[in-house]
């Protein structure tokens, strides 16, 4: 009799953690992680920051070195894509036709960039930023004084803009909505980041409709609907991601804006779990289904999924949090601000580079954007989870310690 095998599809942040957690939870059988990139699981957040700048190298990005996986018996099959899951025979098939049998399966397939399909988008120099290879590609086009146009004023676009400015490029950010970060922050936070980017020399335009990219053998211009033309040596598109759910869908698993998972990260097949950006789960705190794109969610769900696969179920129950680094600004976000009905600004968002935005719903804090204010983030997390009714005047006063709000 052969030992049981758990296959992890996706050598991602979630995939790597899931494999490690399986061992920690006592899985004694084989663990095989299959990934389509040629790298062991790596930290993605530095891609738009220190990896783009060249400060960090691939070895620095790896979450764990190869020897550590070998030590605990985690096998990797890299640079290979799983193309099908046969749930009846419990096998996965790779693109080259090879099949592997599994007893348990974990899907950590992540997300891919949303493509912008317009005229000229196939030109050389029109790029995205999601993987190591994307950044290696971007690096071939950057240099002091070169003109970069960033399409999309979300976090990825803005972090990239900040780093390219630091590297001495001329940077233009073009956003389709009337303000940057519209989907995720209050107008005051958008105003703040608009001001900061302009102070740093970025040309930032909103309400822009992009018609196409023009160039001979590589991109030279970005053309807009109102006739404006922006010269460009490179274009980086950051307009969101799409969860990789096709494999799960083809296998007949429940999929709805992500692979549907229960509180234990199990899919509609009890032998298959899923974790990370590719999943959709019901969040008890916000009382709705969520698909999160964050390192924290990838790591937490990976641990929960591994526990379920080892028959030691633990319930997923985490307050989402995120962070972003641009210039000398660290933004830490606790919770989700969607549906807020009131906003409290603690500090001054129109001057300097330190304040926090507290998002309230029916008198309770549901989210915090803390800008260079780590204590507001740390205590804010607790204020959110304790579901306290807060006094807005005290909350807005940086002189009042947030510690005083908390239940003792």
């Amino acid at each position, binding site marked *: 009799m052969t030992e049981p095998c758990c296959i992890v599809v996706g050598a991602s942040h979630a995939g790597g953690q899931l494999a490690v957690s399986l061992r920690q939870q006592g899985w004694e059988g084989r663990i095989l992680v299959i990934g389509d990139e040629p790298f062991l699981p790596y930290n993605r957040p*530095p891609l738009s920051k220190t990896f783009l700048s060249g400060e960090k190298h691939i070895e620095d990005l790896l979450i764990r070195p190869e020897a*550590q996986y070998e030590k605990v018996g985690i096998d990797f099959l890299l640079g290979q894509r799983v193309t099908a899951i046969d749930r009846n025979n419990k096998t996965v098939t790779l693109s080259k036709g090879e099949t592997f049998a599994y007893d348990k399966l974990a899907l950590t397939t992540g997300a891919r960039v949303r493509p912008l399909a317009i005229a000229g988008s196939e030109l050389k120099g029109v790029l995205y930023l999601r993987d190591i290879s994307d950044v290696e590609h971007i690096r071939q086009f950057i240099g002091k004084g070169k003109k970069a146009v960033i399409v999309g004023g979300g976090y990825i676009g803005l972090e990239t803009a900040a780093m390219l400015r630091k590297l001495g490029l001329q940077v233009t950010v073009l956003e389709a909505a009337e303000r940057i970060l519209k989907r995720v922050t209050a107008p005051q936070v958008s105003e703040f980041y608009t001001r900061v980017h302009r102070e740093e020399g970025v040309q930032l335009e909103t309400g822009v409709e992009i018609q196409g990219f023009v160039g001979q053998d590589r991109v030279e211009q970005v053309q807009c609907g109102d006739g404006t033309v922006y010269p460009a040596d490179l274009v980086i598109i950051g307009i969101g991601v799409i969860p990789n759910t096709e494999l799960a869908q083809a296998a007949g698993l429940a999929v709805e804006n992500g692979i549907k998972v229960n509180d234990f990260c199990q899919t509609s097949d009890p032998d298959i779990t899923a974790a990370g950006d590719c999943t959709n789960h019901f969040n008890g705190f916000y009382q709705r289904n969520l698909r999160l794109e964050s390192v924290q969610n990838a*790591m937490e769900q990976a641990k929960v999924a591994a526990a379920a696969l080892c028959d030691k179920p633990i319930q997923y129950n985490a307050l989402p949090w995120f962070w972003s680094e641009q210039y000398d600004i660290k933004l830490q976000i606790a919770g989700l601000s969607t549906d807020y009905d009131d906003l409290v600004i603690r500090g001054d968002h129109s001057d300097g580079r330190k304040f926090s935005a507290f998002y309230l719903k029916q008198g309770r804090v549901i989210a915090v954007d803390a800008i260079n204010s780590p204590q507001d983030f740390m205590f804010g997390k607790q204020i959110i989870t304790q579901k306290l009714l807060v006094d807005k005047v005290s909350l807005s006063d940086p002189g009042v310690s947030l510690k005083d709000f908390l239940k003792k």
Partner: protein
Amino acid sequence: MPVVTYISHDGAINEIEVASGTSVMQGAVDNMIDGIVAECGGSCSCATCHCYVDEAWLDKVPAASEMEKDMLECVLEPEDNSRLSCQITVTDELDGLVVKLPPSQF
């Protein structure tokens, strides 16, 4: 290679070789030591790699930045010897460093 000793809340002792230039946090993550979570991967953003530096080593470990100090005030059970392990870089001078891990990072 410098050796760092991690003492878990339950008393379990792990003596780990950690390469110079690597953080105390990374040494724990590489070796799958449970008490360190390190959600942000070492960017001083999450405070889930909190540890207590053994008193004998306090003088030898470089001081915390303002950002780290601010975060440390908000962790569970902060002490004077609290540090974020992602902000301590292992050097030959820190060979033998002892850190204790808290019962929980949340």
